[in-house]
């Protein structure tokens, strides 16, 4: 068994205070491997997004540990944690969160700019990533001039521009029509997933299950079952 890309052990997370206090994660343990496209599914409020946030280093758990490539990320200070996210994690947000007043190339170049690459070099690299996601010739357009599927591809290009080991996708098909959603996730599996990368996807969409390596079901803050295990 290879070392996991991510290993979470006994992760607990509470929200709120007093009577409103609720437990979002109840001692979740999970492992994700390189070359794997791991889905986390479950009803709204089951803790999927919370788990994804804890695993990706943006939400500190109340207890438990998360190791990425063997290092406990929650022992890192805030600057080191930011560096960890910048170098190890790529995010595709549900609403994309593209900057409407930047061009698509500038949006994609953001992780590179944060990595202190010179502007022109970053834009040049970003243009290549846009080509990878099938958006050749769209580099100078603002995101608002693109369709929903194209915007999703820009978000994917931005997520992979930093060459992360782990790609986090939150509801990647939520804002897309069925065919486009399936096409996008299929594209990701075919072109973005590789032996040195692990992709975690939170989704409600059954139509993209065909691309999953494993599907973990969550309910009330616990992982209930592994629905499918495909080839890794």
């Amino acid at each position, binding site marked *: 068994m290879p070392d996991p890309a991510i290993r979470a052990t006994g992760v607990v997370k509470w929200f709120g205070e007093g009577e409103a206090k609720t437990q979002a994660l109840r001692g979740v343990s999970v492992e994700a491997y390189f070359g794997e496209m791991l889905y986390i599914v479950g009803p709204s409020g089951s803790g999927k*997004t*919370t788990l*994804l*946030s804890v695993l*990706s280093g*943006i*939400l500190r758990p109340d207890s438990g540990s998360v190791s990425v490539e063997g290092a406990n990320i929650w022992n890192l200070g*805030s*600057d080191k944690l*930011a*560096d*960890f*996210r*910048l*170098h190890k*994690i790529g*995010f595709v*947000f*549900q*609403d994309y*969160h593209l*900057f409407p*007043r*930047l061009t698509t190339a*500038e949006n994609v170049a*953001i*992780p590179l*700019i*944060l990595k*202190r*690459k*010179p*502007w022109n070099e*970053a834009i040049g690299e970003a243009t290549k990533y846009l080509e990878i996601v099938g958006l050749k010739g769209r580099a100078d357009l603002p995101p608002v001039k693109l369709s929903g599927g194209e915007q999703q591809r820009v978000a994917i290009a*931005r997520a992979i521009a*930093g060459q992360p080991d782990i790609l986090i996708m*939150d509801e990647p098909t939520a804002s897309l029509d069925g065919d486009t959603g399936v096409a996008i996730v299929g594209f990701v599996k075919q072109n973005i997933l590789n032996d040195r990368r692990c992709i975690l996807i939170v989704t409600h969409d059954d139509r993209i299950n065909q691309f999953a390596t494993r599907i973990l079901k969550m309910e009330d803050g616990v992982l209930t079952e592994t629905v499918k295990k495909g080839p890794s």
Partner: protein
Amino acid sequence: MKGIFKLAYKLLVNDKAKFTALLVGITFAVFLIVQMTAMFAGTMKRASATVINLGASVWVMDPAVQTVAQTTGMPDYVLDAARSMQGVSYAVPVYSGAALVKLADGTYQYVTVIGLDDATLFGRPQLLQGKIEDIYAENAFIVVQDPEFAKLGNPHVGTEFQVNDHRGVIVGIAKVASSGLFGVPTLYTTYGRALQYLPNPRFTIAYVLVEPKSPADVIHIKQQVQALGYLALTKEEFIDRISDFYIYQTGMGTNLLIMTAMSFIVGLSISGQTFYTFVLENLDKFGALKAIGAKSRELILMILFQASFAALTGYGLGIGLCVLLIALARLRLPDYAALITYWNLGLAFVMVVVIAAISSYFGVRKVLRIEPFEIFRG
């Protein structure tokens, strides 16, 4: 880091509506601040024109004098006493008063007459036309070529007129460092002739102009003059005294303060609110940047850069607008009293920095509080 600043720059200027509103707010505030203080500085310089133009190091006067134009005559012994004081290199009298000039076309015009010491002509202006020794000629006056010059019908050497019903002749045309405040032309003549032409009270010396042997002697001269019951001020002190009079005893200072405060509040309100709205609208994007891996200090730098860029651009535009307005005003009103000084620019700069600091403070607070998890939750 350059890339991050460029990112911040593009996020700011590409939001054209907000950027324009920011610039308008800051430009307007800077314009008002610089314009108000420039008018004040211009007025103050004009109010001290005689002090600046005569250039004496130490001025001896009656303690009642508040401005250079409101003279109280001193007896001749003050001049004699000043000349005999320890540390005085030389001392001369000067006369300053107003006269009525009747021009060749029959019109009347008030003028300021400066009577220079007959023996030394200390404080004489720089001549553009004529010879200084001609000031000793019969009925001779030198006219200052300043924005008020035209009120005397643009005279030339040889032009004749009446001064308080006495014949006067222009023997020279001069230039001075500063024009007067009250919009009247200035004539120079000798002290003796000034006494002949202008109605006089019992005591005629307006000021005694003193040159100390060394700067260290000024303090002793001041003490000796004070012992006589009079007041000795350095040139700078006299200018300050005149400024203080206008600031504290005419309401000009209060008006200036109110206008400056209003400009600041207007600028802060427009710019602060616009910038804060800009940050709020981009809050989810800042959160996304945080999630991607931007450090808090990088986000703070981005916001500070945006606020500083908008502030400095507005500062430049505000000053440019002010310069343009003063230039245009001077096309119509040559003696428009406005003077942009380093002090004006410094004050406006400090206010702009404060506006930028306050505006960015609230934005920074908001951005630091945004949790990337909120972005994930949508």
